[in-house]
């Protein structure tokens, strides 16, 4: 009988305080959550830039494309972005627009992308495996093993969050400066590891906490075990925003436990 890698996935997301649910401009894929078995897994989150329009659609397209066929190098990413940008354009240009919408669409939508692909080793009964990740912008991946943060990618210090990240654009002429800033990393996982995919506000909080010798992953992983995970997460985020420990921004969190 074939043995597969076993894992659980959970997702949490919330729009910026003051915005409607349909104004949430992050994205994540896949949408399924719970416990699964298979020989590989791809996950992605994206943070559509609020200064661009139709950013939510662009972020969604990026995450879905990654999950369908992970990007492992820049040429592959470039060719996919070209196709996705065409698709985005036909999506937004379906109907006539006022002058300002036309100009904004011309500028393109912008988004981060963070994707991770996990696969199992065929030799050791699902105990270990490999992962590889791609990042554009300031969405982050954290790997936690036991009590230790073993990986923080692509940003490892809270002070490294800038005000103006370089992002993937649906206007391909804006991507020239992006290609040499795409970050890749590959490493290994073992059973019991946890991965956290988070957008910038939560990533900044996570790293700040860790810099103060806290274990922020315990709070986040705790939501999965809660009787009302979504409600607990929402209350926690709103309280953290109110006390200014969390920046008011769209928040997205995906947790994978192996």
């Amino acid at each position, binding site marked *: 009988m074939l043995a597969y890698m076993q894992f659980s996935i959970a997702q949490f997301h919330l729009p910026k305080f*003051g915005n409607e649910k349909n*104004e949430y401009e992050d994205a994540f894929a896949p949408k399924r959550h719970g416990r699964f078995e298979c020989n590989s897994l791809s996950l992605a989150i994206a*943070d559509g*830039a*609020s*200064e*661009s*329009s*139709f*950013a*939510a*659609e662009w972020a969604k397209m990026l995450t879905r494309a990654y999950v369908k066929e992970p990007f492992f190098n820049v040429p592959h990413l470039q060719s996919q972005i070209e196709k996705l940008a065409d698709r985005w354009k036909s999506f*937004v240009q379906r109907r006539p627009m*006022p*002058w*300002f*919408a*036309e*100009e*904004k669409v*011309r*500028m*393109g939508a*912008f988004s981060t992308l963070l994707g991770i692909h996990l696969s199992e080793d065929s030799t050791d009964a699902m105990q270990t495996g490999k992962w590889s990740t791609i990042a554009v912008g300031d969405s982050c991946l954290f790997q936690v093993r036991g009590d230790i943060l073993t990986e923080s990618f692509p940003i490892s210090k809270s002070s490294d969050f*800038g*005000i*103006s*990240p*370089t*992002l993937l*654009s649906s206007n*391909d*002429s*804006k*991507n*020239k*400066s*992006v290609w040499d800033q795409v970050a890749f990393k590959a490493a290994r996982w073992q059973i019991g590891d946890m991965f956290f995919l988070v957008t*910038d506000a939560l990533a900044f909080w996570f790293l700040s906490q860790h810099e103060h010798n806290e274990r922020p992953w315990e709070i986040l992983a705790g939501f999965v075990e809660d009787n009302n995970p979504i409600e607990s997460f929402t209350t926690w985020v709103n309280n953290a925003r109110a006390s200014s420990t969390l920046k*008011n*921004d769209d928040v997205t969190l995906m947790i994978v436990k192996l």
Partner: protein
Amino acid sequence: MSYQAEISRANPSCFLFLIDQSGSMTDTFGGGGGNKRKADGVADIINRLLQNLIIKCAKSEGIRDYYHIGVIGYGATVGSSFSGYLAAQDLSPISLIANSPSRIEERTKKVDDGAGGLVDQTIKFPIWFDPVADGGTPMCQALDRAKSIIQNWINGHPSCFPPIVINITDGEATDGDPTEKAEEIKRLSSTDGNVLVFNIHLSSQNAIPIEFSDKEDGLPDQFAKLLFRMSSILPTHIQNAAKQEGYRISEATRGFVFNADMVSVIRFLDIGTRPSNLR
């Protein structure tokens, strides 16, 4: 810390533009070269500032009212430069202004083709204001009017990001020294900091355009020096954003430009994530 308030639809901020429409604006201005009159320059700049502000607030579903906007013209008279129903209000939500240009022109601009070359692109350029040049330069009166409008706005929005007043002029006031009037506006404040007064100087002097300056020395004439002194120091986050774009900025840099358009200031306003590759 000042200038930290989030600009949102629930807590909007405001822009008040003061535009010099006096007779002296028929003179040509130096920065643009050729025969462009200062009045043409003013109209071009105010239309472009409004266009950029509106595009900044445009989202998939329409315009988000992050700002309320007023435009006061000063020349033969002092009052709103808008026509129709916008003229009846001192400040209007930016979505109303977006939907009410007097006409939309098409202009051609060169854009990056993504492969190292440039291509012509036709863009929509809305026009709210045409050039006007008539009468004296009652800048003091315009600043008095601005003070009262801004005070009313702050009364209704006490915790807003501080309003920004942008004065576009050749600096030759005919109703006295405007320095103290500008100071009175700068002393107004919300809980987030003092009101900002910026100046755009259109001059006949054929001197090199200056985008933001941190000292009076070296400015081409006494009007430039006066307008520089009247201008607020740029808040730290605007200074940082400008530095990131390669401007030479110090802690003393003020919101003053000479024969330039100040459109960059709109880029530096923080209403959400702005990608570095969106210019």
